């Protein structure tokens, strides 16, 4: 291997058996042909002593495309979700959802940095799923906020948000717990290939719940959402005026 100046970073796979190791290449050796040569060399060098259970090489071109695709997918997902929330509720809710979602996704990325997990495509999928999942909780609370806003028109926004979050609290925590339990099974049993995905999901569930309670609604105060601004109310008012 030294003939090609291959640098080998050897390290244990997370939760892998002691016999498995991983070989990474440095950036200047990632050209497609070089990867093929490296795989061949590694096979020749250790093939008779070890069994190569899986090889994976992604050329720089594809890597870049996947990266672009991933970023695009992340942006598109968030945009679509925000638009949906806007469409179903009000723009203030959309912004609140966006802030909370960014919080969740960014802190999930942070987990990868802190624990030095592989950020692969699956992990990206986890980040996107978290974006989609964490919004579930928020939608439940938003739904409640909207309902309460119609019911208690005189109550101040802060109290109203507190009330709504508290009323939905049991729901938020129960739904989070069921997903948490399911993902926990993934972390514990699904093996090394899904490890970083499951860890990301697990963390995403925790953080998503946290942000549902403490972050998603906070933005609404700042944006001074008023009951009159609810679409439903507007329509009612217009009808009254017409009558």
């Amino acid at each position, binding site marked *: 291997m030294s003939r090609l100046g291959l640098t080998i970073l050897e390290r244990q796979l997370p939760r892998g058996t002691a016999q498995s190791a991983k070989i990474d290449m440095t950036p200047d050796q990632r050209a497609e042909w070089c990867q093929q040569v490296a795989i061949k060399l590694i096979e020749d060098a250790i093939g008779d002593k070890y069994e190569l259970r899986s090889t994976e090489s992604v050329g720089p071109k594809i890597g870049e495309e996947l990266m672009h695709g991933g970023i695009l997918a992340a942006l598109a*997902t968030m945009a679509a979700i925000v638009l949906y929330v806007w469409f179903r509720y009000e723009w203030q809710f959309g912004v609140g959802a966006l802030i909370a979602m960014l919080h969740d996704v960014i802190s999930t990325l942070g987990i990868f940095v802190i624990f030095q997990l592989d950020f692969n495509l699956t992990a990206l*999928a986890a980040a996107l799923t978290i974006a989609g999942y964490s*919004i579930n909780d928020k939608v439940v609370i938003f739904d*409640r906020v909207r309902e309460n806003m119609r019911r208690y028109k005189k109550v101040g926004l802060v109290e109203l948000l*507190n009330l709504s979050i508290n009323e939905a609290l049991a729901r938020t925590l129960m739904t989070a717990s069921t997903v948490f339990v399911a993902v926990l*099974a993934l972390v514990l049993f699904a093996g090394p*290939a899904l490890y970083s995905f499951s860890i990301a999901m697990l963390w995403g569930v925790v953080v998503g719940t946290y*942000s549902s309670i403490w972050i998603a609604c906070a933005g609404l105060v*700042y944006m001074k959402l008023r009951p009159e601004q609810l679409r439903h109310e507007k329509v009612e008012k217009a009808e009254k005026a017409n009558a």
Partner: protein
Amino acid sequence: MLNLPRWQTIGIIVVTVLAAIFALPNLLPAGVLDQLPAWYAQSRINLGLDLRGGAHFLLEADLRGLTNERLTNLSDAVRAELRKDQIAFKDITVEGDRTLAVALRDDGQRNKALDAIRAVDRSLVLSGSGAVIQLSYADQELTRRKKDVIDQSIEILRRRVDETGTLEPTIVRQGDDRILLQVPGIKDTTDLKRKINQTAKLTFHLVNEEVAPSGQSFPAMLPPSTMLVPTREGMQALRAATPKAWAEIQAANPKLSLDQICRRFQPQCLPVFKRVVVGGEDLDDAKATFEQQTNRPIISFTFNAAGGRAFCAATRANIGKRLAIMLDNEVISAPVVQSAICGGSGIITGSFTTQQTQEQALMLRSGALPATLSIIEERTVGADLGADAVRSGMIAAVVGTLLVSVFIFAAYGPTFGGFANLAMLVNLLLVLAGMSLLGASLTLPGIAGLVLTVGMSVDSNVLIYERVREERANGRSPFSALATGYERALSAVIDANLTALIAGVLLFGFGSGPIRGFATSLSLGLLTHLFTATIFTRMLLSVWLRWRRPKELPLSGGNMLWKPLRIVPAQARIGTVHRNQHPLAAGGGLHRPEFRHRFQGRHRHSGARQGGCCAPRYAPQHPGGPGRRRSLVAGVRRPCHRLDPRAAPGRQRTMRCQRGPGTQAARRQWLDREARCSRHRRCRVHGARCARCHRVE
């Protein structure tokens, strides 16, 4: 509200049973499957490559090199045509990667030149002015050609990879210039890679003996009809002697021409005429055999009629000269033509091993790839690793499902928990059935998607049940609480699912390979979940209500053996948002001193109670810092532990002040203030324990 028309109930049952039937082959052991009819047993979910083991390659065709080659050929043809018509030209050059520029000596001859060029190829787009003529291929011509090249490559790859027809490879076009090749169950990819990497372009050329009869030093300027080609032995020697040079040749971008390789690295080279005597496309068959005298492995081949004639004529005219056999830009051998070969067959000798001749013969049989393919992405998974992945994935799925169902049983009891778990199982069956029907393949991330689906599919039941609990606590009858709870929770359930579905669908659109598997199972799970949450659960609840006509819902426990697991105590209230909070800052709680009491059900002080509009708020906002706040909070002693929030019928509501520290007067004062401050404005305080209020809405 809950009642469903009879036909809908029947429809739901039919769908569920069908789902069970379609999902069943995936769950049955192999022994049972063998006894079932084949069409049914085979409608199983395909396992993806990562679970089955196998190789996945993404190949890219070098279309640029192809266009370049084509332009070079065009320039030769144009040059010949112009000479024939006696049109003087200075130069013919390749400009960029799709244009050829012809510079004429006399622009008076332009029209004549244009005619000559049109005679070469009618489809060319001609432009330029004066003495310069620019030739390029039309766009649609290029696209059509690209498409042809990829289609042809796919066909040839199929023949090469799966000559015996047993491997079931997937070979599909991806995008403009890419081919996805998946071979399940293959263990050693070395052979496969050789088959992909080699174009196997076979041509016969005459050796130009006049250029360098001695064979070593070539003149700087070769005649335009001649080119230098390295021999296979020469390249092998170069690779063995100086691997660096070999690496450089491989890495060069754009690829080095044969001439450049010969001149820079000086392997053994031969000057041959560019004109192709016969090409590999005229081959009919190729076989690996052995030479009779020496028993060396050789390749024997047969030409088709046209090829045989051309070969016959060429050998007859060139007896005594050397004929170079060129395969993939290397001269394999250059035997001297002893006599005219007119039988339509011949042999290729060289330093081959048996395995090489077999492989080479296969390549020649399958035809030359029209473009070089390079592997830009590779994934190989050993079959046993795949089996491991299946095992651990299944364990995770089963454990996940069990944990979730135990959790749900604990939280909502045998009846309602049972409904939720039944809905979850039906959902799982629906997903499996859907994947079987769609022919989607299950990957390891796909299993993760299934487990997530399990976790999320009980969510809607949780939403509904919690809402029902709440409605029941507000004093509705069991029937009405169920109906209202279901109805009110539904919009949140649908919204939540649709948002998650958006993420799933986009993931499917942008993702590739295993991610797609994840997106498929997750999106399918969410879709089927919409069915189970909105209709299936509703059916269960309505049937149960009609059957049991319960006086009390077995949701809140109390009088039963089972006590519900509640993560959040019914009375818990936590501060979450406060007034001066920046939208980007997390609100409320963790740093606030009273947090430790929050989940204890009763609390001594709270910034927000029952949406408490003017409950004391001085502690959290006191500028004196946390220490000061703590002492302030500790100083506030509520005379009542709890104001019973239970609503009395109608618009009246009783607030009850339970035992607590403080005098009766203090209790009364507190009650009075709470009564005034809450939503129930018009209150009369009766004694020290009770206030009766009218709801003001």
